[in-house]
């Protein structure tokens, strides 16, 4: 086993072409670094950054019939280029109650779900971090496994669980309890988000918790602190980066969630991702959908920055 990866001395004959290629490129002013960076930088510029700019641009257009179904921003009329910007999408966003309600209710639903996920995920992450070595990898795999299993199918599995004649109500029926109405409520949406995003919460929490020095707990116990006290004043503050990273990993995608509210929520479950979807697919109003996307981006910018800072703290510790 060990012999296979022991580095052997490189045979010199294959050495030369590489060096020659590198020297040749260096002559034209291209360094190795630039070559490594070129492909991912170009790809992400074209297919990530520029699209966001395009969204912003089209949010300032207005719907019209034709292909593409929005008004052009730049037009040439008798030799002069004209820039036409429409603010009507944003004005609608701020004056139409539907958008405001959907925006606020998305933030509320995402926030409540994130808190529940934290309360469910923290003890699990802590239990895994404290588990004996041979158990730990198995438990971690059990957390990751559902994450690899289709998201859509897991949401579907929940519908089978919570529907009127579903597993939970049949179980309750054994004890003579009246069936509960769970589907098509905000409650179902909370359960759906917690269920599908739980691994995102557990993994960063586990990463911070497993690195904590056990001697800190012993010191705290020696000084007479009871377990709960030790937890609140030692474990919890030290795991803060994990808490922030996990919470943001749940909160940010939950704000824009479409599948969960449309499969589990009722017609009155308003979420901004669903509004964007309907605006695009049902109303075919691309500029309005783009404006909704810009508004949604504003809601997630601060959480994304928080996440970046927390993640570097999780990794560096």
């Amino acid at each position, binding site marked *: *086993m*060990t012999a296979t990866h022991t*580095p052997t001395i*490189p045979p010199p004959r294959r050495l030369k072409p*590489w*060096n020659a*290629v590198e020297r040749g490129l260096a002559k034209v002013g291209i360094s*190795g670094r630039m070559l*490594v*960076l070129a492909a*991912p930088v170009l*790809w*992400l510029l074209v*297919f*990530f*950054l520029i*699209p966001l700019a395009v969204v912003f641009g089209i949010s300032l257009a207005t719907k019209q019939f034709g292909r*593409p179904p929005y008004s052009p921003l730049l037009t040439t009329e008798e030799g002069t280029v004209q820039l036409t910007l429409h603010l009507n999408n944003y004005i609608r966003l701020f004056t139409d109650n539907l958008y405001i309600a959907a925006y606020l209710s998305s933030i509320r639903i995402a926030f409540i779900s994130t808190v529940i996920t934290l309360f*469910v*995920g923290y*003890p*699990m992450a*802590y*239990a895994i971090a404290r588990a004996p070595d041979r158990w730990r990898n198995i438990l971690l795999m059990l*957390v990751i*496994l*559902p994450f*690899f*299993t*289709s998201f*859509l*199918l*897991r949401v*579907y*599995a929940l*519908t*089978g*669980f919570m*529907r009127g*004649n*579903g*597993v939970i109500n*049949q179980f309750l029926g054994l004890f003579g309890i009246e069936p509960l109405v769970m589907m098509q409520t905000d409650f179902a949406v909370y359960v759906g988000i917690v269920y599908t995003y*739980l691994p995102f919460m557990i993994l960063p929490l586990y990463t911070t918790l497993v690195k904590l020095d056990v001697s800190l707990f012993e010191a705290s116990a020696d000084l007479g602190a009871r377990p709960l006290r030790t*937890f609140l004043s030692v474990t919890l503050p030290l795991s803060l980066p994990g808490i922030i990273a996990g919470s943001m990993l749940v909160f*940010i*995608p939950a704000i*824009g969630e479409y*599948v969960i509210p449309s*499969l589990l929520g009722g017609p009155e479950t308003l979420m901004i*991702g669903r509004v*964007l979807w309907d605006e*695009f697919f049902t109303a075919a109003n691309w500029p309005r959908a*783009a404006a909704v*996307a810009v508004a*949604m*981006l504003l809601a*997630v910018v601060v959480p994304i920055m928080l996440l*970046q800072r927390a993640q570097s703290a999780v*990794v560096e510790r």
Partner: protein
Amino acid sequence: MRRGWFLPIAATLGFSFLYAPIVSLVIFSFNESRLVTVWSGFSTKWYGELFRDPQMLKAAWLSLQIAAIAATIALVLGTLAAVALVRFRRFKGRTLFSGMVSAPLVMPDVITGLSLLLLFVAMEGFLGWPQGRGMLTIVIAHSTFCTAYVCVVVQSRLSDFDRSLEEAAMDLGASPVRTFFDITLPIIAPALVSGWLLGFTLSLDDLVIASFVSGPGSSTLPMVIFSKVRLGVSPDVNALATIIIGLVATGVLIATIIQLRSKPKKAKA
């Protein structure tokens, strides 16, 4: 001692919550009745039904192709990005670059989908490419967000391996490129395998982004499933889910074994 019983119970409940719906889904895929939640006898007829559904099979084949291509593109781009982020401590625009790499991880799907669609439409207007939307545009979209995931996986592997091996190779006269292919690549290979698998499953799983950027006649598997599930429960979806869960479980198991096996090596190196 409160924590003595609290943690195991919490973990047991948590894992039951994660797995109970999946288990019930699998059980009811073998149900005779069309009602997904009332047991009426063992049957595998829904599996037969599934394999006779041409729409489902076509979508599955399309999804598998897209996932394989997108995961491969993402593997290359993500590995390059990870090398740049871990090895080049300082370069112009590093913050912007690392932001661009990790933002697709958390970007809400509806934004990614809409922004890429608007880009494709604008590009078609200006450049005449890509013509229409279909498999190609889905591949591009999936490669973009999978790159972010591959990068995270490879990055963590790159940052915790012993650099003295690379230094030794360079001291012996190997160029940086040569060192990368002969020393670095074999060591990070397990991360590359898991990165590719992650990209593959995420692409196979995506509904929202694909819905935005796909064209007529190019419905992916999740799109077909979603349109079925929206109308209510259907037992053949249970059968399909069981097959997918089985495949994924096997895949994750193999990946975990590979990762566990490669660990002692790392310690000795």
